[in-house]
């Protein structure tokens, strides 16, 4: 009996080593990235398509913007991804550059008894008060005031937010700070804040999962998550006083206001934009790379991938209701690559 066990384990071990060696012989470079969960549904589809075309493997770990920044600073990945852009000082200090890859909308999602998708209306102040813990039940007067024609359940609100360092949180809290002076003073806006209330989900995935699971919950996710999982989203009152639904049209309307040319290091906040059709919680997601690349081949492959995403990825982006970067911004980014990124002193793009 034991001889069989020993023999089979040795056999298994040898098979593994052989398999490993075999696989090691295959082609296709691997690029390692980590960070924002905001664009993950899109990045994973882009990477899948690109792998089918070129064989390049993109290993993207969706661990949150905070994680992306930390890993690229520790140089454990080839690029980081974050929806919270770095300020110029931090960038020059660390030797990184950043560029916006795609834009999207952050959407409140709910799981409340008897309310259908797209039925509930909220405004910035009410949303902030829910997240401050001041409004604790769905049938609160403030929510009733905005939703005269909806039958609100007598249910406690279970607030869900992020437990990790998140660019989506950065965008969301910037919005809350813009519309609620109390939020701005008490909590502020950042990738991770001292949340007054709420259960913490890990990543956009975790927040979506919690909202699906917990009765009476409210959370905020990038729209692709609400779309792919058929979640119950809300309508928000924008700056111009209109209630808008989260759609690619309203995200595009908000993004149209973005003045990329005058943004130092592409640092821009896109929340609470003017415009009748603008979705109030919009943002961009960024890729972070080192100016000085250690490995020219990896750098060239990386930029090749990002270039392809700009030129061939629009359809997939729009399919998930993301907003592709406008052409003029893409040209600015390509110029940045050409002028700023070096490997061993030599430019690697184009």
């Amino acid at each position: 009996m034991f001889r069989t066990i020993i023999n089979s384990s040795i056999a298994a071990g040898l098979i593994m080593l052989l398999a490993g060696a075999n696989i090691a012989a295959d082609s296709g470079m691997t690029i390692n990235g980590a960070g924002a969960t905001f664009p993950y549904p899109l990045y994973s589809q882009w990477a899948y398509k690109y792998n089918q075309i070129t064989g390049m493997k993109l290993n993207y770990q969706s661990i949150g913007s905070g994680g992306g920044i930390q890993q690229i600073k520790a140089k454990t990945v080839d690029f980081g991804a974050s929806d919270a852009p770095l300020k110029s000082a931090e960038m020059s200090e660390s030797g990184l550059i950043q560029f916006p890859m795609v834009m999207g909308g952050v959407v409140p999602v709910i799981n409340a008894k008897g309310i259908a998708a797209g039925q509930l209306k909220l405004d910035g102040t009410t949303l902030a008060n829910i997240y401050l813990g001041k409004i604790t039940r769905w049938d609160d007067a403030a929510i009733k005031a905005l939703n005269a024609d909806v039958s609100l359940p007598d249910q406690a609100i279970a607030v869900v937010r992020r437990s990790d360092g998140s660019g989506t949180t950065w965008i969301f809290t910037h919005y809350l700070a813009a519309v609620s002076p109390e939020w701005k003073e008490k909590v502020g806006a950042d990738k991770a804040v001292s949340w007054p209330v709420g259960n913490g989900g890990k990543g956009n995935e975790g927040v979506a999962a919690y909202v699906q699971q917990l009765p009476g919950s409210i959370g905020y996710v990038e729209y692709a998550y609400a779309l792919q999982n058929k979640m119950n989203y809300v309508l928000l009152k924008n700056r111009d006083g209109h209630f808008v639904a989260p759609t690619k049209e309203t995200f595009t309307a908000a993004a149209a206001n973005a003045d990329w040319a005058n943004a130092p290091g592409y640092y821009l906040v896109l929340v609470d934009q003017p415009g009748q059709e603008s979705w109030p919680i919009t943002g961009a997601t960024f890729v972070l790379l080192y100016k000085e690349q250690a490995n020219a081949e990896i750098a060239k492959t990386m930029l090749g991938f990002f270039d392809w995403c700009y030129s061939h990825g629009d359809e997939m982006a729009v399919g998930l209701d993301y907003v592709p970067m406008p052409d003029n911004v893409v040209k600015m980014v390509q110029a940045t690559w050409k002028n700023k990124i070096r490997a061993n002193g030599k430019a690697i793009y184009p």
Partner: protein
Amino acid sequence: MELNSLKKRRRFNLGIQILSAVSALIGLAALLWILFIVLQRGAGALNWNFFTRLPTPPGIAGGGLANAIVGTLFITILAAILGTPLGIMAGVYLAEYGKGTKIATIIRSMTNILIGIPSIIVGVFVYALIVLPSKTFSAYAGAASLAIIMLPVVVRTTEDMLSMVPNSLREAGLSLGAPNWRVILQIVFRAARGGLLTGILLAVARVSGETAPLLFTALNSTYMMHSLNEPIANLTVTIFNYAMSPYADWKSQAWGASLLIMGAILILNIATRLAFRERSRAK
């Protein structure tokens, strides 16, 4: 003892007996509940795609966990290769050379303590020691963390098993003129081999289900492994990621992976238990 009426004492005793039987049943019921759920939810996910395809992005159907299965097997076997010889030799020292010495007593206590160290602390340790300086998550780091968790378990079972070998065997070997090391390797090991193997297999089973240390060392990957110095896909971190996701097909795959891991661990546990009992009875 109280001198109460016999009837009262007997009734109380019966009550306790019933309570204890019920408690044992509660424990059993919990076990069966968990096993049943994993079987029920995981069985549906274990199809051909699961074992042969790589993961696909959310929104594209037909993905599988072939890379994670290979990855877990690989890291576990590598960890076993790293941890087993070290653990066995350490156990040899404690059982054969160190009996009664102060240093052996200290090492033995430390071994027992290390067995109880949270695996997440081992993960933090290996992160600081290997991942940060090498600037990459890797299969090496993952295997190292699992080997560190395996080590004290193997040491203890080796020491226990070797100590159970009667001295008469050792004396017989020595009296024939064999050097001590030969006696240990060829006689004592042979006598204890059932128990030794059981200990190793149980340790391997245990680390194959570990998640926390791999979170900071091997990370995860969507592709098949092709280098030891890169993040490697594995079942446990995949279960963690997929379970916390909102996607129905990912959650189903998480259950499938859970069934796979739990099935392997249970089979190993039950098989070694049965085999060991058989052998010791046959003796």
